[in-house]
């Protein structure tokens, strides 16, 4: 019984945390640029055009450099579902058409959101996305995507 106690405590903690985890997974998605970026906001169509390779520039004409999260990650799945209604298989298939035909490169994959925030903070052309609203003043949210609950 003594030996079981830590296991029971761990199970209870996990049970309490699980709803939190699922809430976090369903959080809205925030498209971010550097705070000094001249573009104040993006429409969803502009974001779709940028993340599907149809456009390479922000509305003011500045070149845009898009960043992405790992190909199979749940954050990326939520992002493309909310942005364009596409599953991971669909967006990967779509990008393999553009990339392997040499037309344009898919957004650069970064290992996690921390690196995403760092890169966007440092790169004046960068556009990225985060699953939590950035509290950091060096980043500006240009579009919030509502993830269906």
């Amino acid at each position, binding site marked *: 019984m003594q030996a079981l106690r830590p296991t029971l405590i761990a199970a209870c903690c996990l049970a309490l945390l699980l709803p939190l985890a699922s809430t976090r997974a369903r959080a809205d998605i925030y498209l971010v640029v550097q705070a000094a970026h001249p573009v104040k906001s993006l429409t969803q169509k502009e974001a779709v055009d940028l993340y599907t390779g149809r456009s390479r520039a922000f509305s003011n004409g500045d070149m845009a450099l898009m960043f992405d999260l790992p190909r199979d990650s749940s954050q990326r799945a939520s992002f493309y579902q909310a942005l364009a209604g596409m599953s991971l298989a669909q967006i990967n298939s779509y990008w393999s058409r553009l990339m*392997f035909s040499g037309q344009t490169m898919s957004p650069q994959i970064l290992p996690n959101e921390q690196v995403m925030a760092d890169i966007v903070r440092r790169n004046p052309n960068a556009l990225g996305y985060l699953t939590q609203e950035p509290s950091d003043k060096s980043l500006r949210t240009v579009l919030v995507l509502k993830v269906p609950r």
Partner: protein
Amino acid sequence: MLSVVPRAAWRWWAPVLLGLALCPAALAAEAEAGPSALRINGFGTVGLVDSDVPAGWGFRRDVSQPANGGGVRGDIDTRLGLQLNASLSDQVELVAQLLLKRRLPEMPTGDSLEWGFASYRPTPDWTIRVGRTNPDVFLLSDYRNVGFAYPWVRPEIAFYGALPIYSLDGADVTRQWQLGDALWKLKLMSGTSRVWTAGSTQLPNTLAKVRRLNGLVLSREAAGLTLRGTAVHVRINMDSGPGVAALASALDQLAQLPLPTVQADARDLKAQLALDVGSLRFVNLGAAYEGEHWLWSAELSQFDGSLQASHTVNGYVSLGRRFGAWTAYGMLAASRTRGTSAVAPQWREALTPVLGPEMAAQAQMLGDATAQSINTYRLAQRSLSLGLRWDLHPQAALKLQWDHYRVRDHGSRLFGNAHGQGGRVNVGSLVLDFVF
């Protein structure tokens, strides 16, 4: 040193060599900016095909694959591609793609370099590419090897397999613009190429040199719908080798005989032989839609050229429906070479009094062989395909497909049948497509 290397052989290597030379600079830039400047990605397919072809036929993906004897084969769809992208700046990128697949034994190793070009974007709306580029003359031309990118096991074979101009040593310029919700693109391309085509079970493999290909592509994309029009003009050296040259020379001799019907037949047959530089023109219209649940596509092309056998009309329609990770699809396709097939002349009786029975029989054999050789290039087939794609992983899909082909007499070019009889073929395919 370069003087001993044929000009055409090193020309397309130039962007690749430039790329290798500039890679250290690109990597240095990467260290400063953070994002990676050098990326390697790949795609591949492992596939098995079974076909119940008539004797002397073989199912193949395109006419650059060797004629085969049918049965269960792993070399029709199996392939591996590697692509290297090196971004030197926001405006300059180098791309090289290597493709390993079953090829004709005569094809040089260098042909495994599918593309190798330098791309320059002076503004976000202009792209200029120089090197070995991809002539995207049909909807799926430039990603036809990337099975993961389309629902079927392979693009429709009569459409994509009959004219294997897969790379272009030259340049192209693309301008894109937004009009309302639609993205428009206009592309002009020009260059040279080499087209290997496998002969039939009786005719040798040949190399046709594309002296010049000029093409124009206009496309419009909006709300999941892509519309595309292409017009291409090709000047091609159609020399089919010493066998065909010998036939032509023998026909010339027969045309000297004082028999008007034999003269006319011999001249007519010779005019249909692929002997010298000729031209080929084609236009293509394509439409593809991809929605959340439904996807469809259709293409129609018309070929004209200096040879009767190149006057071909191809078309297909395809419809698919997604059910979660599963996609069910079907495709109907038809291809036909216009005009009547070459008919073997009846020379034996007419020539016997002039040449004697033995020579007359030989002349008759020559006429038969010429007609057969001309008809080998004709296409006349219809097909129905049904299949299922399962996206078992975000980067891998398993596909199962059944195709039924009805091939008319003198229309079995894709199946490598030199005898000319029609037939029916069932093809079953199981493939795993992946990207990495």
